[in-house]
């Protein structure tokens, strides 16, 4: 081997496949032993406290969000059929869909569907279908009862107003499940537009409902039906749909009637076709337990008290089967009495089977005498009685009755006797019944006896019995409960000493014999007795004016009188004479010192424990205790801690059976096992103490409590027979019942339309009442108008639809409820109206009219009930205006604000203010004029000021409520229920102008010119001013005082002459002046010319002079230069 070889040598290549590789792989298998977190815990430690806190908070948030307030689950064991409503605008294919759905469920083709149709959809699911038309009344009612709404949408049209309206109705009344069904997709030609359209509509639908809301597509019609597989898909979704429990429905019973029968006596109808009817309605009870004799609201009709209620066998029962998956044909039952489908019809006491095609032959109209008889309104015997016969011509006519009376008076003697006897009998009956009655009321205390003994007041004893009763009356006042015993004891006072003792024996005997039927004792047939007594009380009247009081003619009635007017107190007088020792013996075990029940006795439980953990070693003494020889160890060793409680007597008793069992257990268990068991128990205790005490422990325990209650609710009356159960619980949801009403309006029957749902909404007690309902309300943003206070509004609240007059108000910061004339446009406000008391938190919706046909959105407002009251606190502002009559320094007399001194007195101390903002206070009334008062202000007010007082007055809300009786309207006017109209509507209809107050009209403002007074500066101020600011008073030249002179004629002549002379003189002077001026001018001219010449001459001279001077200078200069 040379080194060159070595260099060429290949490195080892491990095998990646083949048996060898696999063998190796299996030898050291790779195991993910540690997670990253485990391997490197530091990397996962808390780096930043803030970050950790944040993440913890987030997880806690998520956890808390999942939790809901635990509620008692009240869903019935066998729920009623779910209501599936098909909603949509007209001509969208609702009826076709309904037909297809029914066909899919029942394999039957039904052409004429009216009203609700109930089908069996599966093992545990029944469905009632209802098609909803586009009457807003109908939509509201359907929204209240539907568990699932199928919203039909025309793909071409998109979502129409009805769908949106239905969404809003649902929102106000509690949202049921909703599924969209997109129809008429075949109207689009190419696939791309269909897809686009689908996507667009689905997005819109999800916006409206929730993300992921389901929208179905029905692609096309084949032979007037949708594609079977599409319908089948839809059906499967419907039948597995989970129904959400809604608050209103969970707390109120309701029946969606699927059948109505008019059970009025036909004779009454014949006599008066408009007479009130007796009607029975059928349907499943839904919601919660419904009680007979309670009041229900029939939506669209009114409030009625149930006269009678019975449960019937279910016409559409759910098949009871365990394993099979699909229904067979027999089980696919359909029940639609309004459409005449569904074979068997049950009634209270009969079952009717539809025989199908055979129609009854047309009855022939009777003629002649039969017809005449049928037409007469009174029965024949009545007619006979009324008819009169006069035997002799002209003699008095005698009717049948009179004749009878005369005959009776003849044979009166015999009859009277009979009557007496009859009276006696009835009296006797009454007594016995009284006895029963008093017994039921008075039986109490430890003393109890059977009814039988009291009832046995025989005819022979009646006299003595009467006496007893009389004494009883006295007894009653003193000692109520001795009554029961005194009856039997014969009121023996001597015996009463031993009464207690005697009762003890009775008691003891009774415990093993029959017991008192307490239910009968409390509820009994008390009602029947009462009516009997009432019948007995006949009034004897003297001349029809005075009433003779039958003063205790019969003891029974006296007793009764006393019973009803006894002292009203809840105090129980115990037996006076009681033997303490005996009583003490009787109640020995009610104290902790007495004996305990086996299940709760501490000692007994300890013994049980001993069986398992009995043996232990006493470390101090070194003794070993073994469970088997409890007795010995107990006797031998008293200080053993666990055994201290045991008394030796008891342990001796245990000897018989238990040791055998114990030995067995002991034999089976090794020491190790026993230790393990002990440890386990300790661990459990520890866990209980410290574990599972997380944040949600409270929540969990709460939930557990609710579950327990739900279980109890379901199980408590389960074993009772149906009749009794109904009595205690009421008719539970899921039962098919027949409800009978009396005095229903005949229009309900006559104008019955199966397409309108008949909903019987049950109410709790207080909801029958009316009151002022305070609600939070918001005008719907799609509604065109704003709502005005005092305008009637139709509100759907609870089961009811009614018209009422709301007042809108705003809760101000100082909690004042200030009236608003109109609702705000985009804000919540409050409203108050007179309406049915409905629990707080119930939603409602309002429409202005159910009659008008409009393409616009019809729902005016939605809201929620806040508070109920019997008075209204809404206020509006009131300004009282007055004017000052006289103004002093800071006080003033104000008039015209009030009309009397009394009014002023009411407002004494009230704040007033002027327009300019000066504040003041009302002080005291003046004696005159009436209503004037003195007021003080913070400063002097002007006489021209206006003074006003701001006050708040309560608004009176009219107590007006009017149920929308849409069910009673005839077919053509069904959609045109017209209630109260607004004032505006009335004016419009009658062409009346809106009345205007003259005061409120605008007029041109005419303002008189104000003259300002000159500024007067006080003298003192003026004196102190510096000179430059001092106003300079310019002395006006004093005018000579002129006196008007009236001249004498002569003087006047003279004066006139003088005047003329003066005028002439003046004129002359003027002329002279003019001439003088001219002369002067001429002279001036002359002087000027002379002057000019002179100047010329002077100028010449100067010129010459200067010339000479110049020459001289020149000469001088030249001479000088020469030098």
């Amino acid at each position, binding site marked *: 081997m040379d080194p060159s070889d070595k260099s060429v040598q290949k490195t080892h290549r491990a095998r990646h496949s083949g048996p060898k590789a696999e063998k190796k792989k299996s030898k050291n298998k790779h195991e993910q032993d540690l997670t990253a977190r485990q391997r490197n815990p530091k990397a996962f430690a808390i780096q930043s406290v803030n970050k950790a806190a944040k993440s913890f908070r987030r997880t806690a948030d998520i956890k808390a969000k999942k939790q809901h307030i635990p509620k*008692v689950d009240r869903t019935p064991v066998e729920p009623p059929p779910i209501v599936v409503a098909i909603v949509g605008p007209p001509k969208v294919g609702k009826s076709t869909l309904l037909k297809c759905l029914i066909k899919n469920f029942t394999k039957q083709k039904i052409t004429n569907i009216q009203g609700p149709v109930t089908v069996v959809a599966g093992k545990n699911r029944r469905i009632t279908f209802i098609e909803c038309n586009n009457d807003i009344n109908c939509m509201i009612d359907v929204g209240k009862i539907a568990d699932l709404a199928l919203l039909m949408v025309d793909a071409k049209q998109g979502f129409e107003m009805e769908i949106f309206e239905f969404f809003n109705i649902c929102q106000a009344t509690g949202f049921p499940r909703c599924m969209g069904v997109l129809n008429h997709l075949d109207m689009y030609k190419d696939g791309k537009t269909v897809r686009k359209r689908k996507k667009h509509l689905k997005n819109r639908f999800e916006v409206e409902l929730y993300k992921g809301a389901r929208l179905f597509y029905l692609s096309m019609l084949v032979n007037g039906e949708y594609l079977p597989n599409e319908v089948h898909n839809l059906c499967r979704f419907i039948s597995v749909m989970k129904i959400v429990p809604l608050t209103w429905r969970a707390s109120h019973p309701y029946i969606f009637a699927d059948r109505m029968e008019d059970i009025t006596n036909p004779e009454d109808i014949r006599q008066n076709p408009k007479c009130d009817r007796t009607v029975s309605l059928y349907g499943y009870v839904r919601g919660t337990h419904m009680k007979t004799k309670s009041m229900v609201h029939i939506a669209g009709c009114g409030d009625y008290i149930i006269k009678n209620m019975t449960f019937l066998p279910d016409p559409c029962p759910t098949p009871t089967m365990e394993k099979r998956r699909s229904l067979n044909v027999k089980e696919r039952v359909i029940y639609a009495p309004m459409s005449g489908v569904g074979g068997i019809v049950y009634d209270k006491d009969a079952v009717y089977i539809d025989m199908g095609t055979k129609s009854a032959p047309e009855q022939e109209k009777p003629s002649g005498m039969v017809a005449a008889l049928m037409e007469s309104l009174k029965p024949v015997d009545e007619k006979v009685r009324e008819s009169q016969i006069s035997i002799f011509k002209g003699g008095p006519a005698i009717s049948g009755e009179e004749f009878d009376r005369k005959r009776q008076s003849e044979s009166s003697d015999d009859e009277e006797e009979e009557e007496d006897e009859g009276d006696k009998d009835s009296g006797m009956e009454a007594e016995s019944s009284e006895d029963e009655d008093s017994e039921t009321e008075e039986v109490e205390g430890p003393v109890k006896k059977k009814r039988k003994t009291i009832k046995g007041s025989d005819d022979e004893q009646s006299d003595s019995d009467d006496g007893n009763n009389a004494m009883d009356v006295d007894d009653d006042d003193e000692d*109520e409960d001795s009554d029961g015993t005194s009856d039997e004891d014969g009121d023996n006072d001597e015996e009463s000493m031993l009464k207690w003792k005697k009762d003890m024996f009775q008691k003891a005997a009774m415990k093993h014999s029959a017991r008192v039927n307490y239910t009968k004792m*409390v509820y009994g047939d008390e009602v029947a007795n009462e009516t009997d007594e009432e019948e007995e009380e006949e009034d004897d009247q003297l001349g029809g004016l005075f009433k003779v009081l039958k003063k205790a003619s019969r003891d029974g009635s006296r007793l009764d009188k006393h019973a*009803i007017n006894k002292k009203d107190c809840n105090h129980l007088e115990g037996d006076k004479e009681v033997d303490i020792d005996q*009583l003490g013996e*009787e109640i020995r075990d009610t104290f902790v010192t007495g*004996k305990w029940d086996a299940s709760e006795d501490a000692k007994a439980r300890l013994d049980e424990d001993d069986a398992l953990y009995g043996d232990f070693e006493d470390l101090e003494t070194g003794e070993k205790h073994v469970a088997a020889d409890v007795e010995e160890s107990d006797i031998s060793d008293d200080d053993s801690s666990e055994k201290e409680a045991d008394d030796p007597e008891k342990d001796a008793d245990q000897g018989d059976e238990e040791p055998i069992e114990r030995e067995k257990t002991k034999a089976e268990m090794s020491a190790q096992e026993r230790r393990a068991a002990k440890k386990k128990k300790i661990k459990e205790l520890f866990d209980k103490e410290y574990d599972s005490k997380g944040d949600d422990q409270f929540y969990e325990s709460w939930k557990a409590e609710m579950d327990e209650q739900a279980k109890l609710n379901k199980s408590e009356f389960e074993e009772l027979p149906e009749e009794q159960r109904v009595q205690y619980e*009421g008719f539970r949801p899921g039962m098919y019942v027949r409800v009978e009403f009396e005095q229903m309006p005949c229009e309900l029957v006559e104008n019955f339309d199966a397409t309108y749902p008949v909903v019987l909404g049950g109410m709790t007690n207080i909801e029958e009442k009316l009151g002022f309902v305070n609600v939070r309300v918001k005008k719907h943003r799609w509604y065109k108008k704003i709502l005005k206070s005092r305008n009637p509004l139709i509100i759907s609240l609870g089961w009811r639809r009614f018209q009422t007059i709301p007042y809108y108000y705003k809760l101000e910061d100082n909690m004042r409820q200030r009236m608003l004339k109109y609702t705000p446009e985009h804000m919540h406000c409050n409203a108050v109206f007179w309406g049915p008391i409905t629990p707080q938190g119930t939603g409602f919706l309002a429409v202005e009219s159910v009659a008008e046909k409009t393409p616009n959105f019809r729902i005016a407002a939605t809201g929620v009930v806040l508070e109920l009251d019997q008075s209204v606190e809404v206020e509006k502002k009131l300004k009282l205006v007055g004017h000052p009559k006289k103004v002093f320094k800071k006080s003033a007399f104000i008039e015209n604000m009030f009309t009397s001194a009394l009014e002023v007195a009411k407002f004494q101390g009230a704040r007033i203010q002027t327009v300019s903002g000066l504040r003041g206070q009302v002080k005291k009334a003046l004696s005159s004029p009436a209503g004037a008062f003195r007021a003080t202000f913070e400063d002097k007010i002007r006489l021209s000021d206006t003074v006003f007082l701001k006050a708040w007055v309560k608004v009176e809300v009219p107590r007006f409520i009017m149920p929308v009786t849409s069910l009673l309207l005839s077919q053509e006017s069904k959609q045109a229920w017209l209630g109260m109209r607004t004032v505006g509507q009335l004016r419009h209809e009658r062409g009346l102008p809106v009345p205007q107050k003259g005061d409120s009209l605008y007029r041109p403002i005419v303002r008189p010119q104000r003259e300002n007074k000159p500024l007067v500066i006080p003298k003192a101020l003026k004196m102190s001013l510096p000179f430059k600011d001092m106003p300079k008073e310019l002395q006006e030249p004093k005018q000579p005082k002129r006196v008007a002179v009236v001249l004498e004629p002569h003087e006047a002549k003279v004066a006139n002459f003088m005047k003329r002379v003066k005028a002439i003189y003046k004129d002359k002077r003027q002329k002279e002046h003019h001439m003088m001026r001219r002369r002067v001018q001429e002279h001036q001219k002359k002087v000027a010319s002379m002057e000019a010449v002179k100047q010329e001459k002077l100028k010449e001279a100067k010129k010459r002079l200067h010339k000479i001077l110049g020459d001289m200078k020149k000469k001088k200069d030249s001479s000088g230069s020469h030098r």
Partner: protein
Amino acid sequence: MSSLNYEGCNYFRMRLLMSTLSGKSVKISQIRPEDDDPGLTDFEVSFIRLMDKVTNGTKTVITETGTQLVYRPGLLLGGSIEHDCHNSRPIGYYLEMLMCLAPFTKEPLRAVLRGVTCDKDDPSVDLLKLSVFPVLKRFLGTDEGLDLKINRRGAAPDGGGEVVFSCPCRQKLRPIKFTQPGKIKRIRGVAWSVRVSPGFVNRLVDSARGVLNKFLTDIYIYTDHMRGGQAGKSPGFGLTLVAETTEGSFLGAEQVSSAKGSGEEPTVPEDLGKKAALTLLQEIFRGGCVDSTSQGLSCLLMVLGQQDVSKLQIGELTPYSIQFLRHIRDFFQVVFNIKVDKKAVTAAGDGDGDEEEEQELKTGGDKLILTCVGVGYSNVSKAIR
């Protein structure tokens, strides 16, 4: 709105109470028509006044003779009210009904009642506090805000006492399941006296203990001797005892001295103490989870709960509670299921089959289990914001 008709003045307050709670109007006719002083009495009128104070919109029409009354209830208002109760009946007469109404008011009730605090016919304020309050607490959930303060005591003829009752209001009450009364573990009580020698209370306590010590050692009776302005206008004394069980049920009983000028013999404290103890033993004999005083109240509040099953074990029904049950049926259409509690009667001694232990537990009279479904009553007066 439906209306109910009754005759006679008995159960007068019960009818008005139920009418107020159920909203049904009630017409009572034939009120003492044959008495020398026919028609409504002063205390009944006083009760009507009280009802008018706690409600809003109540209308009462009484005929001229006073023998007929039409009562149309309004809504419960609550809040702070003051009422001078007529002295012919003690405050307990008014307070008993007020306690039934108080949980359903618009605002928590705080009522100042003046008059006779303790008298023979009606439960005294002490008894109501000791035995009815624990029951009320079970329905309300907590006893926060539930209070009865005795400012002044006033004995029978002239009164002069004053108590302040305050109670929180609820939207809904809780259903109860209370069928195990447990065993009596302690006895408490109040011995009170006004305008008599202060030694009376101690004599009452001693004599009552003399009887009760045989059964239980944990007995403590508070003495409450009021003097001066707190003592009212008439002399009197009384003893109220209450037995508390391990499960928290309270059985109360009381005795009150005969009123001054009532024509009865003057009461000796020792006799009264002994009698009170005896009454308590009788009450224990009757047993149950609630005592006879609060039977009516607990039945009513069971009915006024949510639509859940409530279960309650009580002793023998008193005539008054029987009438309560009947009225409940009339006003609320609820029928109670009344069964004899078999377990309490037949429970065996110690579970071991020995000859002398086989006898049943000695727990007094028959025990009944009342079961009913609530009507789903909710407090419509309370406002939500």
